[in-house]
């Protein structure tokens, strides 16, 4: 049973990646789970400098989901390289770093620092965070912005470049195409859906930033559809995410066209979910006599089904 998958030049031992923003810097989980057993760990988004993020409350639960506006609190790329990366390397983690920026130059500079550091496997470009005022989603909601960020980072790194796309656009596949044209090695999607929750008694928003991003099982069918659309449009690998809570959900994304998957919100509910996901996917391959999980990717069968007894 071969669970390995290829993302550009990067080989992952399995397709299961801890999603950025939902797994701290990875080291928080190092005593609880074997980080080297994951396909990769996508660490929390990093700017050039430290950021405090938004005041609490930062999350609110919704039916089968949650809305968050953390505001990309973070220690900055230099402290990450000094304080977190060595332990991640020591633990055998495959590290994908989520790169943030308020300007094009900041994306480039953060990417440059990470490319010079020891132990970074790939760069995920955060052009889709809905919760910060400048940068981020401003690039991700414009085709030229997406193209510009990806091509600028492409020029300064040999690491695989993976822009993370926002679903808050009309045609996400056109953004995948812009990223591909700019030299991206893969795209990851979806980031969260812009959302809000109101306390009707106080008539106040339930999170301090007023609006935030919806994640969790509630968004899964929309995310699957968007992964499918991107797979149809681009040749580069698609990394799928959005509400995956068990192995079946992960397999659904892969059949839709995801070469790998990320899991975020479900890790909050069950921090020991990883081995269950990986074992569940392996059991599925066994049951369907598929030797390599890469062979499952994009195998959706859309032929018209002929209704039984229709006489056709």
């Amino acid at each position, binding site marked *: 049973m071969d669970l390995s998958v290829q993302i550009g030049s990067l080989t992952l031992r399995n397709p299961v990646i801890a999603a950025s*923003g*939902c*797994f*701290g810097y990875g080291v*928080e*989980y190092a*005593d*609880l789970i074997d980080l080297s057993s994951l396909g990769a760990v996508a660490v*929390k988004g990093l700017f050039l400098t430290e950021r*405090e*993020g938004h*005041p*609490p*409350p*930062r*999350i*609110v*639960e919704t*039916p*089968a*989901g*949650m809305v*968050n506006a*953390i505001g990309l*609190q973070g220690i900055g790329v230099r402290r990450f390289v000094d304080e977190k990366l060595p332990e991640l390397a020591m633990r055998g983690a495959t590290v994908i770093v989520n790169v943030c920026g308020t300007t094009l130059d900041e994306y480039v500079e953060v990417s440059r620092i990470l490319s010079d550091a020891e132990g970074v496997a790939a760069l995920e470009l955060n052009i889709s965070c809905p919760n910060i005022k400048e940068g981020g989603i401003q690039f991700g909601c414009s085709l030229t912005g997406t193209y510009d960020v990806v091509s600028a980072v492409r020029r300064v790194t040999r690491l695989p470049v993976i822009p993370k796309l926002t679903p808050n656009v009309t045609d996400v596949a056109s953004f995948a195409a812009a990223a591909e044209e700019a030299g991206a090695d893969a795209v990851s999607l979806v980031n969260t859906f812009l959302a809000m929750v109101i306390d009707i008694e106080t008539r106040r928003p339930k999170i301090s930033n007023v609006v935030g991003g919806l994640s*969790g*099982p*509630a968004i899964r069918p929309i995310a699957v559809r968007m992964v499918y659309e991107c797979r149809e449009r681009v040749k580069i690998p698609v990394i799928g995410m959005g509400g995956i*809570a068990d192995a079946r959900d992960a397999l659904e994304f892969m059949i839709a066209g995801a070469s790998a998957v990320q899991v975020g*919100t479900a*890790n*909050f*509910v*069950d*921090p*020991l979910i990883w081995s269950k996901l990986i074992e569940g996917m392996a059991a599925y391959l066994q049951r369907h006599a598929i030797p390599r999980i890469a062979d499952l990717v994009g195998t959706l069968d859309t032929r018209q089904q002929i209704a039984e007894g229709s006489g056709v």
Partner: protein
Amino acid sequence: MPSDVDAEVMANTPLTTDYNVLALSASSIARSVAPGQFVMLKTGGNYDPLLRRPFSIFEVLRDRSGQETGFSILNKRIGASTRLLYEARRGQHVACLGPLGRPFTPVDPPSEAWMVAGGVGLAPFAELARALRARGVSTTLFYGARSASELFHLDLFGSLGVTLVVTTEDGTAGERGRIVTPLERAFAERPAGDPVMTYACGPEGMLAATAKTARRFARPCEVSVERIMGCGLGGCYSCVVLMRGSRGGFHHVRSCLAGPVLPADQILWDE
């Protein structure tokens, strides 16, 4: 190291129409928990509510031979998750991740210990009182509630040799008003040379008032804060508290990792 236990409900004891004590079978957590630490709980495998909820450990439960068998929580029904925990039946299962977080720092004699509790903030003090008793520390519980019917387990604390000071907002038991009033009096009457450590857990306003009072009398104080928490492990960054940084200024600190017990004088309180 925390473990995730699929714990069976051993007993569910209602205290009022909103409060209950839920006993859960989870020996690995019970064996390793320190006073002030917490667990993340979830009933059922459903998606609504989706996330776990943090709870202080109320009591470590033991069998007749003294072996730890599980723990109890003090629950107040305020939303969907707490309603499910209020209605949980014996034999039902609850996912318990823990123990998590930084515990209280118990003092040694000659220091005295003053525990300040408001409402369900009573929860971590039963085990802290036991730890302090084992160290021979003279302990007082300042316990405030809305009404006499919401003052729980006074007998338990009495049996642990804890001196009780009680207030209720409606005056149905003890002094009428807020618990910080008798606390202030006690601080004022205390000779400056007699060491006292204050531990507080309860509503944010009570914590802020306790922290302010302790600072005014130059007394050390630890508070157990409660924030909306997504994961309990440092992954989500939702439970942050503004705290004084080592390099000046204030920074958002994750209360699940640095707390829930935090030094009161390092927190930036809303005035």
